[in-house]
């Protein structure tokens, strides 16, 4: 416990330092003679160094523990529990389930990604209300909602396992194909699609390397590290949050939480990353 506390204190100090650093305008270096393309920025390098340190003892574990407690001990108003929840591998089976979604769920009549399925179960068995979940679907500094902790727990139970999103059911294939089209759809005032930034190799925004999400070896980068512990705030963010923020930056209107569109997009990107190893909940700035 003592070790845990000191680690957390160290994390808090690092986080604060990083937040302070992030708020400073980037230091201007002397103009390079030929303005050659720079390598990673100093901030990025610094961040990546202590991401490695942090991932060995990720604060995400606190949310994982909270999620585990809800999964194992929480009872619904009718006595239901998450032991009844089928994540695709049988009622109550959590191990390996995260990396095998999105998948078709006959009881819901839908293809669901992990987050959608977890929320579905929490409403069905534990009595969580859809309106409450929609009121705050994503975490902020004040609160990481229960479903986010449960998703973190479920994700951690697929640590170091190969991504294997199924493509057997016609609806799973449909989700992949529709998601592929959503990825390519240009719209909005800037004419952006996902592919504008993530459709070719070796591109950057500012100093941020952009993965080409159409390729298997790079598609893993949209999956790895989610759900992620946001250091500059101390809360967990999920893949659904990431998709939401992508659409914001794409200058689109907002996707409804847990909508078919986001599931389809996740199906496309996850299937593309099939076979790659998922390392579990990660760290984000």
């Amino acid at each position, binding site marked *: 416990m003592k070790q845990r506390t000191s680690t957390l204190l160290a994390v808090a100090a690092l986080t604060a330092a990083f937040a302070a650093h992030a708020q400073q305008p980037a230091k201007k270096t002397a103009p390079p003679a030929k303005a050659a393309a720079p390598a990673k920025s100093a901030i990025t390098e610094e961040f990546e160094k202590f991401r490695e340190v942090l991932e060995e003892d990720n604060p995400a574990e606190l949310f994982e523990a909270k999620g585990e407690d809800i999964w194992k001990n929480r009872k619904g108003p009718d006595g239901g529990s998450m032991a009844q929840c089928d994540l695709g591998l049988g009622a109550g089976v959590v191990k390996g389930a995260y990396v095998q979604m999105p998948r078709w769920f006959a009881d819901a009549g839908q293809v669901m990604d992990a987050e959608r399925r977890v929320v579905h179960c929490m409403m069905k068995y534990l009595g969580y209300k859809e309106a409450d979940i929609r009121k705050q679907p994503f975490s902020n500094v004040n609160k990481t909602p229960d479903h986010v902790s449960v998703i973190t727990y479920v994700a951690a139970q697929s640590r170091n396992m190969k991504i294997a999103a199924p493509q057997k059911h016609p609806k799973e294939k449909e989700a992949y194909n529709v998601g592929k089209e959503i990825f390519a759809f240009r719209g909005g005032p800037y004419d952006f699609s996902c592919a504008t930034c993530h459709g070719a190799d070796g*591109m*950057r925004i500012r100093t941020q390397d952009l993965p080409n999400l159409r390729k298997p070896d790079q598609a893993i980068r949209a999956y790895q590290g989610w759900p992620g512990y946001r250091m500059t705030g101390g809360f967990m963010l999920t893949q659904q949050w990431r998709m939401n923020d992508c659409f914001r930056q794409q200058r689109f209107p907002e996707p409804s939480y847990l909508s078919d569109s*986001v599931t389809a997009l996740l199906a496309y990107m996850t299937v593309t990353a099939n076979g790659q190893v998922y390392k579990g909940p990660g760290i984000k700035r």
Partner: protein
Amino acid sequence: MKKTIVFAAAALACTAALADEVRNYRAEAVAMLKRDFKAKGIAGTDRLHEDSVQAICNRSGDNPPKDVAARLEQDQLEAIKYPADGKLMGDWKEGEKIAQSGRGMTWSDKAGIPGGGNCYNCHQIAPSETSFGTIGTSLYQFGKTRGNGPDIQKYVYGKIWNAKAFNLCSAMPRFGHVGALTEKQIKDLVALLLDPQSPVNSK
């Protein structure tokens, strides 16, 4: 009798395969987006309706037939509004600020506030800024090699106003065309690229 059944089965299999092939996932995707996305802040659902350029680029994988592209580029070119005073070069220092700003047009941006040009997100421009993207070409020394005569001024102004007038499915937004940047802002950006005093053109 047996033969008939075999034929019927084969025909059915063919139909099923065909139905799968001709399915229009693009149309399904567009319908799904329109169902799932909601207006938020300044980002209305009208943003999901493709205009003529988006419609053609989306249906051709950003590679439309040449004659179609040429006609649509001409339409876009004719819609460019050049300044009434005929002056296309503003203040490069203001241009640098606009180039730095990545704000504008998201649902978390307020209406009415002048947005940024997002230029450094994708382009190398002034040598002092080493944090630049690579989706667009490098614009470093742009005016140094091209001068700043009336033709190049007109081209740069037009390109920023509407990049699609020159390359129909370009990744670059149509800043003037959609009202993301004002006439004055575009003039300042033209100066950033072409003014001999701009650091873009320094030795």
